């Protein structure tokens, strides 16, 4: 057996998952290989039905793959005996898309569940549960039952439960999708914190690009059961290779929408009134390219749409600007943007 480098926390090799029904055969995951390094936060994005949930369920073997090898923390799960498998699973926390809370246990009882088998004393479990409840801001719901909770509250319980056992790997299947922005933010910060402080490896499915931007280091894009693109978040954002990744990024910043609107409103474009799409990806923005170029070339620049943010230390973003001035000045401005390493595209 090939020895796996110690850096990789999760290694999936040539994973296939096939669901067989009476009539139909669904290839939910097709020949996917994936390595997630220790301490990484790995995002998985893709449209609904792409196979994301199925893929991550393979990591702790909740879904046995039809084919392929699963190695977590240097142990080949697919070869372990049940007893051993449980030892490894202890290291993997999972937050389910549908919460999967136990309706017969209170919030505290649900969070305490994974601790029951650890040999901790009642008082210790209690203390830990109290801490976790504070963490997810549900202290006052300690004794409520799941049926009495709102959707977001349920999901927070699920998150606390997944963290209870101090996992080394945390798998999160759309853990924040039912949460309001504040809670989302606090949960993401929480995930970031456990990742940084405890070096927990996190695999995270999401459909919110904001989440990917905010906490992931690497990202994989899935389509029809396959990973069609992967890499550091910054690279994928700056230089998406597949149409799907582009689409995701574009929809996440709403450029298309803005474009349609702008085009609908401003109909007369000519050589002295142009529409540019600027794409920033680097230190250039800091230099105030727009104001500098406007001053240098004398053109007037209106910002019609802007979405700029920092990603992994580098500011990236899109801006749609209306540039008015003499034809030559506009051309000069175009070239100046280019020279400043800003991708510029003449839309009109």
């Amino acid at each position, binding site marked *: 057996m090939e020895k796996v480098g110690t850096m990789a926390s999760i290694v999936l090799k040539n994973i296939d998952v096939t669901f067989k029904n009476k009539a139909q055969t669904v290839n939910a995951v097709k020949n996917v290989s994936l390595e997630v390094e220790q301490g990484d936060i790995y995002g998985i994005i893709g449209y609904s039905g792409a196979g994301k949930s199925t893929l991550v369920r393979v990591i*702790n073997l*909740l879904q046995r793959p039809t084919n392929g090898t699963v190695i977590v923390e240097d142990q080949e799960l697919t070869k372990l005996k*049940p007893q051993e498998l*449980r*030892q490894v*699973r*202890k290291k*993997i*926390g*999972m937050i*389910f898309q*549908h919460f*999967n*809370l*136990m*309706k*017969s*246990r209170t919030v505290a009882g649900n969070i305490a*569940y*994974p601790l*029951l*088998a650890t040999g901790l004393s009642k008082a210790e479990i209690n203390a830990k549960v109290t801490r976790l409840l504070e963490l997810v801001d549900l202290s006052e719901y300690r004794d409520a*039952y*799941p*049926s*009495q909770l709102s959707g977001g509250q349920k999901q927070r319980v699920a998150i606390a*439960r997944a963290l209870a*056992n101090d996992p080394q790997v945390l798998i999160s299947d759309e853990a924040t999708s039912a949460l309001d922005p504040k809670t989302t933010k606090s949960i993401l910060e929480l995930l970031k914190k456990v990742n940084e402080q405890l070096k927990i490896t996190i695999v995270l499915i999401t459909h919110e690009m904001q989440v990917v931007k905010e906490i992931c280091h690497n990202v994989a894009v899935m389509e029809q059961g396959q990973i069609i693109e992967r890499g550091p978040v910054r690279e994928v954002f700056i230089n998406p290779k597949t149409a799907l990744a582009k689409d995701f990024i574009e929809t996440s910043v709403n450029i298309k929408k803005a474009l349609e609107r702008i085009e609908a409103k401003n109909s007369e474009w000519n050589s002295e009134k142009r529409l540019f799409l600027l794409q920033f990806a680097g230190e250039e923005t800091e230099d105030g390219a727009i104001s500098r170029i406007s001053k240098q070339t004398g053109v007037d620049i209106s910002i019609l749409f802007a979405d700029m943010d920092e990603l992994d230390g580098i500011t990236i973003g899109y801006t749609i600007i209306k540039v008015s001035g003499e034809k030559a000045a506009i051309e000069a401005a175009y070239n100046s943007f280019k020279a400043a390493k800003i991708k510029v595209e003449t839309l009109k």
Partner: protein
Amino acid sequence: MKTEFIDAIYQTIYMTVVSALFAGILGLLTGVALVITQEGGLAEDKLLYNILDKVVNLLRSVPFIILLAVISPLTVFLVGTSVGTTAALVPLVFGIFPFYARQIQAALLTVDAGVIEAAESMDSSNLEIIFRVYLREGLTEIIRTSTITVISLIGLTTMAGAIGSGGLGDVAISIGYARYENDITLAATLVILIMVFVVQIVGDLLVKLTERG
């Protein structure tokens, strides 16, 4: 007559409680075993499942009166005699536990698969999942089902008169019915009815107490 009647009440309660206890344990064990060994279960085991499934069906196939006879060597072995109230316990247990096992099986199958899966992902052993998830999450259903079973069991005790079990059923049949003393039949049936109601009320109460939406 009065003390006989009180004896009969006592005997019925004794038979019901004791055999419910044993049948409860056996039925729970068997029901749980059926659920976890079935296809896709926690500890899938085709052979064991098939054996249990068949045994349960076999026991359910034997008419009770024949069960009384067939099982009597076992009864003698276990309680030293094949007649009397205590001797009735053995056929009662074997008469009711397969039924209870099926009920438990059905009850546990209503537990959300997602929750079982969550427990699996939290490194719970099968035993832990049985006790901390199946039996707990299924508790309300188990109680509902146990109520039905205990009431069936009370009904069954009325048929153990053949081996001198005594009890209200025996009084109702061998005194009230066979001697045409309708008052006694009525009185005995009424007491049985009260018992059934008590069981049902307690069951319903427990269901309400344990139900969590």
